[in-house]
């Protein structure tokens, strides 16, 4: 099959490679590393100061509780739907909650299970049309002023709703997000995601809300004002990351998105590396697609901090972080390879192993800037654990260390894959 290359994307990619090559040749790779690091450190410093401002802020207090409709789109979720509905029901709220499950043409025995649950409304769809379409059906049927969209493999904590709702006190707020956590992580891969989710939804989401920069209302559970959803026309049924698309559309229509890190929402996370890879490829391709769709917001003063800082700098940070990993590894790989080559050659001479220690790989001194990033991220891990009152036990160190030092390589790899799939306009896989 001849790939349908996107010529403009190819040109942009080649131009970027050319620019990096030019900088490496003219400036020297090590100053390049330092400049990249410094830009990233600046972005993170802004987040840090936003966090200190957030800490001094009072929580909103609600005068009157609005009515709530909970929408649960379900596709082949027989294994978790019962538990999901149970935990949704168990959520503490002073008014009666309307619960609507939209079965999106499941092929498993979801239908049987759903028929057995009393007190909920179920919409059965014959054909599978996707999560966004299912949610739109739900929105049309919903009566509540606030709509909670919850995935069928997600289990919110009993106090989540009561903690999130007060943020709607501000009429500007169109949506509220919570702190999504991995549900009962057992395998190492799940534990790494647990750390990642804590940092993304604990620290970054909170801080982004502070500078009005939220770009995703997480699919597992987010709250929306129904009037706003109807005003902006519901979910985009063609989009592969509908939760990002709707957040950007809210931003485009000048609504605020609030974050409530006290509301904990548990969700199933991928248990296999291949599933994780596929999920992330979808997310990043979604980011490319939606960045193009909403490119008019970038550096547009009409969108305030979101247009001038959060949105463009999130893209800059992604690109820089990935280039930094590539450039740093390639700048030091010679030293690392030489070292290992030397070790083998040396062992061949039946020399004493102790003599190897002074000959550790010589890494370039610019690598010391990494230590600032590592220190900064260690602080973020600490802050994120504080949000959920978790102690950082010694048993958590392996996954935290892996996240800090190696997770970036995985993310870069997925990013490149997503990018090439996007250039190649490959089919989207859920």
């Amino acid at each position, binding site marked *: 099959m001849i790939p349908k290359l996107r010529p403009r994307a190819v040109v942009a990619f080649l131009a970027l490679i050319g620019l990096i090559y030019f900088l490496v040749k003219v400036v020297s790779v*090590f*100053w390049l590393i*330092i400049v990249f690091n*410094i830009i990233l*450190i*600046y972005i993170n*410093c*802004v987040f*840090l*100061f*936003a966090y200190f*401002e957030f800490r001094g802020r009072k929580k909103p207090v609600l005068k009157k509780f609005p009515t709530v409709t909970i929408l649960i789109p379900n596709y082949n979720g027989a294994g978790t739907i019962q538990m999901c509905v149970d935990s949704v029901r168990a959520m503490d709220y002073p008014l009666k909650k309307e619960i609507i499950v939209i079965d999106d043409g499941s092929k498993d025995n979801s239908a049987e299970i759903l028929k057995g649950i009393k007190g909920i409304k179920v919409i059965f769809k014959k054909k599978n049309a996707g999560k966004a379409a299912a949610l739109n059906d739900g929105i049309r049927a919903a009566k509540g002023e606030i709509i909670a969209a919850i995935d069928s493999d997600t289990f919110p904590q009993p106090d989540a709703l009561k903690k999130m709702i007060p943020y709607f006190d501000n009429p500007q707020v169109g949506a509220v997000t919570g702190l999504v956590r991995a549900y009962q992580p057992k395998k190492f891969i799940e534990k790494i995601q647990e750390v990642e989710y804590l940092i993304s939804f604990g620290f970054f989401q909170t801080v982004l809300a502070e*500078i009005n920069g939220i770009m995703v209302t997480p699919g597992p559970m987010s709250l929306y004002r129904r009037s706003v959803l109807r005003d902006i026309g519901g979910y985009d049924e063609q989009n592969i990351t509908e939760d990002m698309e709707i957040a950007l559309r809210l931003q485009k229509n000048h609504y605020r998105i609030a974050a409530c890190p006290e509301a904990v929402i548990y969700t199933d996370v991928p248990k296999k590396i291949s599933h994780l890879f596929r999920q992330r490829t979808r997310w990043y391709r979604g980011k490319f697609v939606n960045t193009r769709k909403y490119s008019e917001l970038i550096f547009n003063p009409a969108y305030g*901090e979101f247009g001038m*800082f959060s949105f463009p700098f999130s893209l800059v940070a992604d690109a820089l972080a990935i280039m930094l990993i590539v450039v740093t590894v390639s700048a030091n790989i*010679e*030293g690392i390879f*030489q070292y290992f*080559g*030397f070790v083998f*050659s*040396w062992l*061949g*001479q*039946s*020399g*004493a192993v102790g*003599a190897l220690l002074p*000959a550790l790989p*010589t*890494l*370039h*001194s*610019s690598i*010391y*800037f990494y230590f*600032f990033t590592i220190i900064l991220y260690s602080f973020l891990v600490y802050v994120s654990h504080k949000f959920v009152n978790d102690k950082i036990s010694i048993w958590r160190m392996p996954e935290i260390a892996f996240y800090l030092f190696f997770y970036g390589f995985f993310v870069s790899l997925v990013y490149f894959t997503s990018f090439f799939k996007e250039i190649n306009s490959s089919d989207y896989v859920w």
Partner: protein
Amino acid sequence: MVSRYLKALILTIVVLFVGLGAISFLDNNRISGISSTIEKNSLDLQESQQLFLYDSLFDDISICNSLKKRIDSGKDKASGILAELENAQRNSLFSGDISLLKRKFLLQNIELYLLIQKSILDCGSENVEQILYFFPDKEYCLDCASQAKVLDSVVAKCDNVRVFAFPHDLDVPVINLLIEKYSVTSYPSIVIKGVKYSGIQKEEAILSKISCAE
């Protein structure tokens, strides 16, 4: 609202300068160790030269003993130093005058070699074993790094062994003459007692060719 971005900018600048400071400190640290070794060797050489000068002015037999002592004490991991200098240069942001250090070390090494030859001529063959080690300077050679380690280990074992590291591609007159003299063509090569051995030589092989005084 603006102050948040300004505060972040100030903090970033602080981080930048602290980082550059740390890098320059580490770079200097890397080099200063090598530099002090070279300085020390330089002083030792100067003393030896003064002894020769004294010898040429006054006829005195005791110089052989003093000279021997001098040459014995000027012992260091000669072959490894160049590689260390190379690494420091390649991996440092603020590498300063490494090229000067390198040249100084090289000339020193040649001078020490010549002095020892002269002392052997004047005072008779002492129990000094000399190994000449030829390697490329401008390109990385894995076997050379390994050979340098082997030679360092031999020097550490045997008190009477002197290694003279000569990069072949720097166009230094004396080295060119030596290369011609021993017809060295491939690298690494070592010369022991006037015989050339090409390719990497194992420690046992070297020890079998010299008399090692521990």
